[in-house]
């Protein structure tokens, strides 16, 4: 059923859930119907009374008839009928669409016809029925569960793992942490991230492989050693046995996860440089935004030259990528006259609490691919422009913004006090609404876009944009950034 799970896709949005759910039900229901048909053929050949008797047992005249077999048969019949009806509707639609009597307007894009939409609904209903028929024994079993039994089996699994010293395996792999610093050199700026990544990469396979192995060998070992005979001869449903084992291993792995996470946290907190801790131990709230592309044929300030670009029209093909990881080609320095592609993020849902803060810290991370060798040792340069909602691309804001940015970029670290005052005047001129602190920092050269070495991935935006947004300009020269994160404001 989970084979239809699509892993490579954009993050799911709430509005897409019903459609995606319907699609999943159709896919999973199709598999379920095939399974039911195969089981019906098998049961008819091997079991007196067919599939229903195999699942629910032969009807007992002395006992009241259970609702489950009747519901199972109803779902089965509804599923088969539904699929047949949906197929007929599609066939009818196909016949009608090919009929010469029906006028068509090829220039007008047509949506799905009533028949196609209806067949979709019928198909979803039929698939849901098939899904319910397959899951019904499971649901019925849920009604007769006794949690004391399940808990007993879960405790047994836990004790088994502890007393058979399975946990020592986990403990032994902790030895790797004694020597981790030999293999994981980390710079101060990204030390925390590196350590956390290493710990995560360590925990994931250890826990996944261990839990898979323990769970896979639990019940088979019971069968092999025949201890299961003393369990299934008690009033224990098969499902309770599996669920109990599953619960026990879940608890075990949760306990292991808790211990390992605590140890790893201690390791990270103890091993990290205090400067790196001050830099990195801050909560971050990712905002992804909506992404689209613009092409600027002429100068940046020429608003007439800006046109929207569709994804498929972009010149750079970097292979299969997730939709929200789109790429733009950089400027070819040897052909400076060529068009510039810009990636534009819109953040329509920025938390309102940010408006009350004097400053908002923004970070962004991205990948850069170099398609040509270029100049060795030369960093790749890219620019970010942050606009607030007051930005008006149709007015002069773009020109003002560009000029302000240019002015701010030209600010130098002042050699003496008069130069500092002169720079302060320039800042106030281009940023009339800027705070005193911002003016002070910018005139001191601290707000200048940083020139960071090639391995760094972030920059601090401390100057103020012309439109009054507290977030601002940044210029980074990253070379090895891997993680993608859109800027936030």
């Amino acid at each position, binding site marked *: 059923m989970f084979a239809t799970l699509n892993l490579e896709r954009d993050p799911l949005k709430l509005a897409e859930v019903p459609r995606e759910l319907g699609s999943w039900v159709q896919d999973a229901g199709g598999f379920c119907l095939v399974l039911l048909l195969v089981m019906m053929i098998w049961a008819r050949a091997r079991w007196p009374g067919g599939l229903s008797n195999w699942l629910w*047992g032969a009807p007992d005249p002395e006992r009241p008839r259970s609702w489950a077999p009747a519901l199972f048969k109803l779902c089965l019949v509804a599923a088969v009928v539904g699929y047949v009806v949906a197929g007929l509707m599609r066939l009818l639609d196909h016949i009608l669409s090919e009929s010469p009597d029906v006028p068509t307007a090829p220039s007008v894009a047509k949506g799905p016809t009533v028949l196609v939409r209806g067949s979709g609904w019928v198909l979803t209903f039929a698939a849901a029925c098939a899904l319910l028929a397959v899951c019904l024994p499971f649901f019925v079993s849920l009604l007769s569960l006794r949690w*004391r*039994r399940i808990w*007993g089996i879960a405790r*047994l699994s836990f004790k088994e793992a502890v007393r058979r010293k399975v946990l020592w395996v986990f403990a032994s792999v902790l030895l790797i942490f004694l020597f981790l610093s030999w293999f994981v050199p980390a710079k101060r700026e990204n030390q925390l991230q590196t350590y956390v990544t290493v710990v995560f990469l360590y925990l994931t396979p250890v826990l996944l492989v261990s839990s898979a192995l323990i769970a896979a060998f639990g019940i088979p070992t019971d069968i092999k050693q025949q*201890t299961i005979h003393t*369990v299934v*001869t*008690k*009033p224990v449903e098969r499902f309770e046995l599996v669920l109990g084992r599953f619960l026990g291993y879940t608890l075990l792995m949760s306990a292991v996860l808790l211990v390992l996470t605590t140890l790893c946290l201690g390791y990270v907190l103890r091993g990290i440089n205090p400067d790196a801790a001050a830099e990195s131990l801050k909560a971050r709230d990712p905002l992804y935004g909506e992404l689209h592309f613009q092409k600027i044929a002429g100068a940046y300030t020429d608003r007439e030259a800006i046109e929207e670009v569709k994804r498929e029209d972009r010149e750079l093909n970097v292979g299969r990528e997730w939709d929200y990881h789109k790429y733009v080609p950089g400027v070819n320095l040897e052909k400076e006259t060529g068009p510039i592609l810009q990636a534009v993020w819109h953040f329509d849902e920025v938390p309102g609490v940010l408006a009350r803060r004097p400053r908002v810290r923004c970070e962004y991370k991205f990948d850069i691919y170099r398609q040509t060798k270029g100049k060795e040792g030369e960093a790749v340069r890219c620019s970010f422009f942050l606009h607030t909602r007051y930005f008006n691309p149709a007015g002069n804001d773009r020109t003002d913004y560009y000029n302000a940015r240019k002015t701010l970029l030209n600010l130098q670290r002042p050699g003496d006090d008069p130069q500092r005052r002169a720079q302060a005047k320039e800042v106030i001129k281009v940023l009339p609404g800027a705070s005193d602190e911002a003016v002070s920092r910018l005139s001191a050269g601290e707000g200048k876009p940083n020139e960071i070495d090639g391995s760094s991935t972030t920059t601090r935006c401390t100057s103020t944009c012309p439109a009054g947004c507290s977030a601002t300009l940044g210029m980074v020269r990253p070379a090895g950034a891997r993680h993608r994160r859109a800027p936030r404001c």
Partner: protein
Amino acid sequence: MGGQVVIETRKLTKVYRDFWGRQKKVALNALNLEIYQGEVFGLLGPNGSGKTTTIKLLLGLLFPTDGDAFVFGKPAADVKKNERIGYLPEESYLYRFLNAEETLDFYGRLFDMPADQRNQRAQQLIETVGLKRDRKRVLKEYSKGMRQRIGLAQALINDPELVILDEPTSGLDPLGARWMKDLIIELRKNNKTVIMCSHRLEDVQDVCDRIAILNEGQLQALGKVSTLLEDINRLELHASGVQLNEELRFLRIVEESKAHPGRRYLPERDAVVPGDRAAAPAARDGDKAEASPHIKELPKK
């Protein structure tokens, strides 16, 4: 027996097949049994005769190839019937990393027993089976006899109405075997129904009210122990295609049926049975296939 029928089998058959569905072994062939409440019933037969298969079919551990089995009036595959059953397997297949108390607590939980009732019952049973001093030791440190005792305790944790014991004296020393038999008799006194299977005659002889003798999946004899064990010198030959000539005149045909092709010959009363069994070509000795009026007519020496 006039008691309530606890177990009933109708033509219960189990055939083991290979991967391709071809018949490999008929473990049990059309077994018809009725076991009544309050009796101790023995399944007797050599290894591979179908005793354990019968028990597994009754417990729902195996599905029958043909026929039906009912326990307390419910199909053998019904899990709910297990609430009234206690089962001791041939080898005491218990979790060796648990101690005696934990073992009984675990099996008590499987019967959905409340904690206080579970603890009380566990302590009582530990005392009954004589493991009070060793109740904190894990089972892997137990001897085979001790494991058999704790196995019996787990079978009785729910105070069952029907106790099924598969080779209960296996691995026990003579004293232990005697203790086990006494316990079975005690269960009978408490109106429990006990089914035990064994390949040792003396085990069933001591405690069973009725026995069924199985051989190669066939029920050979069924009845009261006292009745069946009277014919200790009976010789029965199975053969087919035998012409009774002068040398074999001491034999008489007892039975020939469609269900059991092959004639069965018994010595005529007062005839001298030759010591050489090869006198009857292709003959083999065996037990009575099923209860029939002929049993009463069997010659006795």
